[in-house]
């Protein structure tokens, strides 16, 4: 395994300082994919995406083409793009939104045509102040170009795109909470079934929700063909994917990598990627797919970056963020901070999530600050078990959305891998790492 020579499908333009402008976009093949799509039938476009076997990049990894093919049995009213990106240590959509907004818009227009939707909303997290400006400016340019609005490029197809700002709430990344937020309400996830967006979505109409990165892949796939995309990667994980690498690495950043052909070791250590762990330290643990995912240790470092490969090993590729912790990291402190995040961001609708996260945070905090009690470890595991019975992976669903059952992931991993550290905190009232 190694770093492969796969083409840069969605980051090819980003090396240019003016990658966000229409001039650069048009000079590098911009809007050719849309023109090509408009000359095809919508079914043919869906078929191309289906052939590519493009898995959704928002976290759940459902194939985009299949989602649309199912949807097209009944007319879809709205397309909503999920740019809420708030999963801790995930920052790939940030790059796409700020550095290549036209690619996102072109992808969105292709998706709108394929699903025959005439009203699109791009929901961006409010903290992306510059991203919101870049996407709006790009949209204004796209309108002038005739790519958005009435009768785009003379095709007879009309579509409007509205950029919508969020206002700071992690839960609004969950698709039904996002729709509630877009309706001007609190971001409360809806109970599914019956409220799958495909059946009852925005304003009660059938709605398709896709992630920013999922959309950004579409221009390349339409131009180069679904089979060219499917030829990259392996098995169900086709094409390239963005991985956001952060924590204890020499070169944190977003890397576009061919799926399955590359391993976590390559990502963390290859000189052209993460460049290794600073100060000559060793790897202690890493989180393979956002803070909702169970942790991995040095033994799992040779796993390939593939959806099924990581799932089979007991975690998930999730949102494509990899957090590296070196051997000077306190596992108690790291899992305490993650737990506090969930306690703050739980929307509060479900008792196991709201109360469970609060209790876990309290117990974790007293252990972290040296006030832990003898039976705290059992208490922690018991509280975890109440949120996600059996502590299985994937967790059992006890709540309206999957935020709740994800809460125990970090604590469960930390206790399983570094039980001694918890015991030292509790028995000696201090941290071995100072």
């Amino acid at each position, binding site marked *: 395994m190694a770093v492969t020579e796969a083409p840069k499908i969605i980051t090819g333009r980003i090396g240019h300082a003016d990658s966000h402008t229409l001039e650069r976009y048009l000079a590098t093949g911009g809007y050719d994919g849309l023109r090509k799509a408009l000359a095809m039938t919508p079914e043919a476009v869906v078929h191309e995406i289906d052939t590519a076997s493009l898995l959704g990049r928002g976290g759940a990894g459902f194939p985009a083409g299949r989602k649309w093919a199912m949807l097209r049995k009944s007319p879809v009213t709205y397309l909503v793009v999920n740019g809420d990106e708030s999963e*801790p240590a995930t920052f790939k959509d940030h790059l796409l939104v700020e550095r290549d907004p036209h690619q996102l818009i072109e992808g969105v227009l292709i998706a709108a045509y394929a699903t025959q939707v*005439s009203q699109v909303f791009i929901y961006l997290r409010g903290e992306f102040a510059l991203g919101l400006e870049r996407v*709006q400016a790009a949209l204004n340019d796209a309108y002038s170009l005739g790519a958005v609005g009435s009768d785009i490029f003379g095709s007879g197809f009309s579509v*409007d795109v509205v950029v919508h700002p969020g206002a700071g709430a992690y839960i609004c990344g969950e698709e039904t909470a996002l729709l509630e937020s877009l309706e*001007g309400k609190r971001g409360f996830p809806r109970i599914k079934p019956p409220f799958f967006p495909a059946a009852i979505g925005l*304003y009660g109409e059938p709605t398709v929700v896709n992630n920013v990165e999922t959309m950004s892949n579409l221009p390349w796939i339409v131009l180069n063909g679904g089979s060219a995309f499917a030829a990259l990667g392996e098995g169900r994980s086709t094409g390239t994917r963005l991985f956001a690498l952060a924590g204890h690495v020499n070169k944190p950043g977003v890397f576009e990598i061919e799926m399955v052909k590359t391993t976590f070791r390559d990502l963390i250590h290859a000189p052209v990627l993460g460049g290794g762990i600073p100060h000559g330290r060793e790897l202690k643990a890493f989180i393979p797919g956002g803070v909702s995912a169970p942790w991995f240790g040095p033994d799992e470092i040779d796993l390939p970056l593939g959806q099924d490969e990581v799932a089979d090993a007991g975690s998930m590729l999730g949102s494509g963020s990899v957090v590296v912790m070196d051997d000077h990291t306190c596992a108690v402190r790291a899992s305490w*901070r993650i737990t506090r*995040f969930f306690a703050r961001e739980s929307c509060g609708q479900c008792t196991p999530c709201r109360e469970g996260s609060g209790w876990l945070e309290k117990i974790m905090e007293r252990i972290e600050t040296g006030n832990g009690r003898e039976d705290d470890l059992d208490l922690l595991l018991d509280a975890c078990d109440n949120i996600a019975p059996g502590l299985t992976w994937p967790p059992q669903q006890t709540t309206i959305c999957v935020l709740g059952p994800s809460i125990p992931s970090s604590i469960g991993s930390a206790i399983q891998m570094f039980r001694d550290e918890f015991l030292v905190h509790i028995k000696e009232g201090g941290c071995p790492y100072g």
Partner: protein
Amino acid sequence: MSSTAHPTPVDRSRSKGGPTPSLTHLKGATATRARELIALYPEPRSALIPLCHLAQEQEGWLSPEIMVDIATLLDLTPAEVLGTASFYDMLHTEPVGSHLVSVCTNIACLLNGAMELLEHAESTLGVNAGGTTADGALTLEEAECLAGCDGAPCVQVNHRYVGAQTAESFDQLIADLRSGARAAEIPTHGTLNRVARTTGLQADRDQVANERSAMAEAQGQRAAAAKDTAADKAGA
């Protein structure tokens, strides 16, 4: 029982083409932009969060009076506006400084010294996280992940990224904010979007409906033709 036990039902008549409601606090240009924003959505209430951002751009925060204006524009009750606004971290129902300094302490930043940076910020500014300096200029907040984890510890000022900070660079940043040295790059609190949409909705809803029914018909014909071809093949 007195009649006050039965609150007057909300008057939703305005949405059915009543007179233009009058606003008391949203000013001219902002009010115009508010109405343009509302026109972008199939349902006015969807403009609630954008309007809250717009109001913060004018006032710095969501005062009770300005929430009444938003309610008027959207044909909601002020309580409905507050009910939504209070859910979101970026919507402030209490005054904040003209510069909101957000320090992320989530996992990637934690591993790179964010807690220490936050402590430094609290002691140099003389406030706890969540507080505003005595002169009302700066508000410090501890943030969850800001999706800028490659520049850890990540700091935003008024939601503009200012890159990874050390204690020294943080002090310089604060000095620059106080002197106005970075005003071009970091507008005052609330200004979420300096690029406005240049057009209203262009695809007329009736026109779109017509196009879509024509397309649905064409799709039906293509599906039928595909079925015939398949049947021919099966027969051959």
